[in-house]
């Protein structure tokens, strides 16, 4: 039962974009920090990330009739 609630909670967070920043950080760690050397830039802050994400999302058609 608890597992099911947990899965549902994960799904809800995922669908609503609640966990988007955590996933972004995970993606960043995976692709930008090769062999522990500090490369290129730092990840965006949470606020900047959501700002950028929102602006990108609302630049095109994403709602219908």
């Amino acid at each position, binding site marked *: 039962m608890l597992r099911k609630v947990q899965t549902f909670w994960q*799904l*809800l*967070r*995922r*669908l*609503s*974009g*609640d966990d*988007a*920043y955590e*996933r*972004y950080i*995970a*993606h*960043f760690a995976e*692709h930008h920090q090769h062999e522990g050397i500090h490369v290129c830039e730092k990840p965006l802050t*949470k*606020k900047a*990330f*959501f*700002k*950028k*994400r*929102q*602006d*990108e*999302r*609302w*630049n*095109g*058609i*994403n*709602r*219908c*009739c």
Partner: protein
Amino acid sequence: MHKLFSKIIWLLIALLGASAVGGIAVNRGESINALWFITAALSVYAIAYRFYAAWVTTTVLVVDPTRATPAERLDNGRDFVPTNKWIVFGHHFAAIAGPGPLVGPTLAAQFGYLPGTLWILFGAVLGGCVQDMVMLFLSTRRNAKSLGQMARDELGPLGGTAALIGTFAIMIILIAVLGLVVVNAMKHSAWATSTIAATIPVAMIVGIYMRHFRPGQVLEATALGVILLLLSVFGGGWIDRDEFFRLWFDCDGLFLAWWVMAYGLAAAILPVWLLLAPRDYLSTFMKMGTITLLAVAIIMLQPEVKMPAITRFIDGTGPIFGGKLFPFVFITIACGAISGFHSLIASGTTPKLLTNERDILMIGYGGMLLESFVAIMAMIAATVLDPGVFFAINSPAGVVGKEAINAVATISSWGFPVTVTQMQALADQMGEATLFARTGGAPSLAVGMASLFGSAFGETLLALWYHFAIMFEAVFILTTLDAGTRVGRFMLQDMLGNIWPKMAETSWLPSVIFSSFLVVSGWGYFLYIGVIDPNGGVNILWPLFGIANQMLAAIALCVATGILIKSGQLKYAWVTGMPLLWLIIITSTAAWEKISSNDLRIGFFSAANDLSIKLSVGVLPPEKADIAPQLIFNLHLDAWLTLFFVALLWLIVFDMLRICGRYLAGKPVPPSSEAKHQLSRLTEDWVRD
């Protein structure tokens, strides 16, 4: 053994579906249970999904699960992200499901429940779902390019331009008609108006919360917003009962129309985080929740559908909109069966999240099946009302008479008995002053939903349920309205940028204000005319929207058919060619009738002539004579607009045929813009979800 078992199961589903469809088709009794509709729909969907759609993906499109999708190849952790298929399904469905499948079936119910229901089922499985799925596939193979870009690359500049203009035109008409639906729902209803007005500050509070107070805490903010929205439904009831505040929100249509325009302008100019994005979060939650609630209520209650299978109005004399069953039932249902607008989501937006081509079946085809199911539920909600009540709510005063006594006499004389006391009692229950001539579909849907919710979850709260339903419709109609205005602004800025490059800068304020103003004036004009039109405006605007929407679908199917033939799949080109042919037939016939018909309620030109003759002879009452010149101008404009849509459609059809002819004759054609095959490195357990 297992195979045999599965065959038997599918045979049973086929038999069940056939008898349910047959049952609703031949029933001529007093009423029919709504469960028949649900059974027919689910079996038709299951068979179509398992057999037809699966065959299209494997044999016609040849999806390749080993091929890397744009989400994998261009993964940037922000907009291109390989995502779990259920999540993509959720996003895709939230994006395609709008007010269209709720309004269309409600209006089309004037022909009876049968024609609309059949088209919602079969139009979706053979047309709409195929269109969505094929566009999703083609765009996934082309780095998530949009419909316009694909049309330009694969057919040539003509196709690209036609797709762009078509998209822009449909947006303007769509927003106007949706604006009209909201205005009609708010007209002289202090409860509805104050509740809908309250959704704006609620959205702003949520926006500020998400941006500055607790950045990115989407769920927290949404929960807060949903609570505030529900409170605003209660608060509206309080305002409605208060002598003083009531007057503030008891407004006439024109005044509300100006406010809707002002709102649209503000929403297009203000930063997205303040109004647009938070409103969208809220409307998505409300939409999903209410649709689920509706499904639960219908299955729990198993209500009786009281509308006859077919009404006398198939002859074209219907009060809600003029025109015969063919082609107007197809034009009116629109989004619930096949929607051109979906091709804009299926190309460009959804492919950026798709992890594997294998999921195209479920997301593209399945997403539209669910949308079609929403349309079936809207049809049920409209037809469980007494037919007399349904027509009293939806018939404009210009057709049945302004006084309640005249309206019930006319409607009863059609064979749909209804009385003034019955309508007044219903209005009192719903907490409205009157329910006569509340055109646009939203009020009658809300009455249907309120009576369903009321019987399922508590009869005493009918007025609350009614205004909850109105709020739910208004919230996501306004979301489409402001998102559409904003997209229209971007498209216009892009076009103007070709003349003066500075106009294309989306952050240059003069350009932002100027182009937003142009877009709002575009739809605002049609909204204004719709509000002053004594026949309610919906009867003109909805068919125009239907024609535009089906035309956009035809453009998408043209691109799809052209690409199929160019990639050597001529023998399967009928998969998209057949719905394309049907759309060409219905849009061309509908457009021809709207232009040339002598019936005043169908033909634009004949209505304009009739009005100008009456005006010159001086037989019009003074209040009608004042607005007659505007109505005449508008009828001419609508006629030319219709002609333009059809011309655009035929232009792109011929362009597609030209390209296909050249290809089949071995002459050079624009090369395929498909991205090179790259092996997917993602395996099931690797996907981040």
